[in-house]
């Protein structure tokens, strides 16, 4: 239904474009000068068609469900139902009207379901009538208004500018959406679990927080010693540390080699090949770590008499490090290439070898940029999910032994939220609280890293 209406409105838009342009040609044929190209007259009318349609559609989308709900629930208003029960009744009748209801059908619900259907159809048909009449009225009005000396290009361009501006707000909206989706759950979580227990507690065992009956009152003592995030934060930073131990030496050295030593030909092939590593989906790395690296390390450890868990932090961190190599190598390559040639020439003139120049002159000059690229790599390691979920353990151990298994923030979020979630349950809220801390940590790292890199770029430009 909505689709047909939508197509019809689009067709109306095209027709009004056609009429607007036609009117412009008629004006032109009377030897009067037009103020804009004829198609702007068409666009002008088409916009007059689109705006009322858009406004009415959005008003309907916002208010229709609320009004229908109010009307239906007015039947039950003086029977002493609680708000929750009323909501439930409404949902039941909605489900019944769609034929998806499986519970017991009472005459009351049946009546409301019928009422729901009739209200919906009234709403639907009134929407059609209102939209169409509004469009026709506004287009007719605009059609009457345009004459030889009316402005059409300016309003059309203003409208386009407004559309462009709105699109650019999408980035802000997304950020707001992220904060919005995280903050309420997080606040609710900290109402039950004190912030202190979360930040300094050393026992993370969310499985203990079984799903409670929603009618029962919350008993905070039930959750004491369940949501202490220290083991998780420690595990996250530990695995990120292992990853950086792999990524920094290899990434940095290959960046230096590519920038300073490699011939154009080697560079042309080696650089994209290394960057393939960044394009491989993380789930593939996770599978590789779990299937190949984990068992390999375990076997290696056993042959040396060490006890290695099949889901060791070393396997996850090592594979994560491989994933991060290209980020560090590309960024440090860029940074090193942008160090001015005069610095190199000065050093060579003093008789320094190439490696001495790199170590004593170029590296210090490029250090801020390199630090920035490392920070971006750390932020990626902390936020990486699939490798940890698949290759590292899911139980939160507080350990600094790379051969044991640990868990991370991201892995715990997935463990808690996989499958069905009950909103309003401390366990679900804990995942959002973890997400919030992840968001904040990576945000700080990113802001610092981007600022450092930017400052550095400005220095040599």
């Amino acid at each position: 239904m909505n689709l047909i209406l939508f197509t019809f409105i689009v067709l109306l838009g095209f027709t009004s474009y056609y009429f607007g342009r036609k009117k412009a040609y008629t004006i032109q044929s009377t030897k009067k000068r037009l103020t804009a190209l004829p198609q702007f007259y068409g666009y002008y009318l088409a916009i007059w068609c689109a705006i009322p349609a858009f406004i009415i559609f959005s008003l309907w989308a916002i208010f229709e469900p609320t009004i229908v709900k109010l009307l239906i629930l007015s039947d039950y208003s003086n029977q002493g139902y609680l708000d929750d029960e009323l909501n439930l009744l409404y949902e039941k009748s909605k489900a019944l009207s769609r034929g998806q209801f499986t519970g017991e059908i009472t005459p009351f619900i049946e009546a409301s379901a019928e009422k729901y259907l009739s209200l919906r159809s009234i709403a639907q048909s009134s929407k059609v009538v209102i939209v169409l009449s509004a469009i026709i009225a506004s287009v007719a009005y605009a059609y009457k208004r345009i004459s030889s000396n009316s402005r059409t290009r300016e309003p059309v361009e203003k409208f386009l500018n407004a559309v462009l501006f709105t699109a650019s707000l999408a980035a802000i909206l997304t950020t707001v959406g992220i904060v919005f989706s995280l903050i309420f759950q997080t606040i609710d979580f900290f109402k039950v679990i004190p912030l202190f227990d979360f930040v300094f507690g050393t026992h993370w065992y969310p499985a203990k927080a079984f799903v409670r009956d929603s009618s029962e009152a919350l008993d905070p003592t039930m959750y004491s010693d369940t949501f202490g995030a220290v083991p998780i934060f420690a595990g996250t930073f530990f695995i990120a540390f292992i990853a950086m131990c792999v990524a920094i030496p290899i990434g940095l050295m290959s960046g230096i080699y590519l920038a300073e030593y490699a011939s154009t030909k080697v560079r042309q092939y080696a650089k994209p090949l290394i960057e393939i590593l960044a394009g491989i989906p993380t789930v593939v790395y996770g599978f590789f770590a779990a299937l190949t690296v984990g068992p390999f390390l375990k076997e290696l450890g056993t042959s040396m008499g060490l006890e290695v868990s099949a889901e060791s932090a070393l396997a996850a961190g090592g594979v994560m490090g491989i994933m991060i190599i290209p980020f560090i190598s590309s960024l440090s390559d860029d940074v090193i290439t942008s160090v001015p040639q005069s610095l190199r020439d000065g050093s060579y003139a003093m008789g320094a070898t190439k490696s001495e120049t790199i170590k004593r002159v170029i590296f210090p000059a490029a250090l801020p940029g390199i630090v920035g690229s490392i920070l971006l790599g750390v932020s990626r390691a902390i936020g990486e999910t699939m490798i940890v979920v698949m290759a590292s353990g899911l139980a939160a151990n507080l350990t600094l032994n790379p051969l044991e298994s640990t868990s991370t923030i991201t892995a715990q979020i997935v463990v808690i939220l996989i499958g069905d979630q009950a909103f309003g349950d401390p366990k679900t809220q804990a995942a959002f609280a973890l997400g919030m801390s992840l968001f904040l940590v990576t945000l700080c790292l990113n802001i610092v890293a981007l600022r450092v890199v930017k400052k550095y770029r400005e220095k040599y430009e």
Partner: protein
Amino acid sequence: MNKNKEQLLNKRYKAEQRFRLYGLSAIFMALLFLIIFIFKIFSTGYSAFQKTWLIVPVTFDAELMMLDQNPSKEDLQDADYYDIALKSMADLDPNANEDQENELKRMVSYFFEKEIKNELLNDPNLIGKTKEVYLTASDDLDQVFKGNYPRDLPEDQRRVSDYQLKIFDQLVANGKVESKFNISFFTNADSREAELAGIASSFMGSIFSILVCLMIAFPVAVLAAIYLEEFAPKNRFTDFIEVNINNLAAVPSIVFGLLGLGVLLAIFHLPRSTPLVGGITLSLMTLPTIIIAARASLKAVPPSIREAALAMGASRMQTTMHHTVPLSMPGTLSGTIIGLAQALGETAPLILIGMVAFVNTIPGSPMDPAASLPVQIYIWAESAERGFVEKVSACIMVLLGFLIIMNLFAQIIRHKFEKKWS
């Protein structure tokens, strides 16, 4: 004194060579990882493209199938195939006792009844006759035939019994086991049985999510980039938008999953587990990538183009829409494809919005529950059955194939259509 100097110089040259070697070996290590990686995936995955069939003589006994004489098409549809299917398996070993008959039955997939039925529906004249029918081997025997199964394990640690192996070896010796290209891997939906599981459902899920993602992210990102690059005044607000975009590009993907869960599912009540929600979530993630690429390619259009258009009396909007934007399109498009390739490989946000649900039907629209290729990899990788290991690798090969094609496409667009200004 002179000797000392020479020694020092030699030392410095040696250090120089060492440093150079470190750099070279770092690159070699990175490339070595890549090679090991690809080799491992291909060597475990290629066998999934072959499927093992048992050739079993089936007697289409009308009585056992409860068919009258001259049955109609509907009769054939409704006939009872279980008994003849069971009998033809049991007949593989005439001396089998009841337990062994059960084991014989488990040598083929539970789909075997349907395979026999299809055979008869294709050729109704078979009633009363015996024909050799291709039946899908169970995933364990499939692995045995491909040589991936540890046959020397003690029997109680294997899912294949000695008896099954004995019969299977007889069949192999008689040439009654055949390996053919595994079409069902591409046409079947997911299944709990490794031998029947295919990627069609997750493939369609991926396609739908990417389409939704493209339809949302591309227009919004291009419009936003045009505004920021061509029209935005230089003030604090536009700076704020810029900072936002750069930060969003580095936010961990799982946070977008939480956004999808907390806003799209909990507040807007969009249907769970669907490519629609997955696509919207991915589009928010791809948005900054496309905006950054589109801005870069708008920036690369030389100012002389704009100045020429403005000098001819075009308005700023006309200049942008008629000249700058079309010239920037190749760069924007290749950036979009790269962004979509990233979105195609993304797993974590889709898990959070419920696209890990077991789906054994092929979705027909973005509103049907579905998985996606990377999520399918995760689901299979978590499953304990041996038969799924090669499936995971094969699925990875398909996914990597798509990513390579998309990236090549992006390269081609960039090199073929982008104008070089010099």
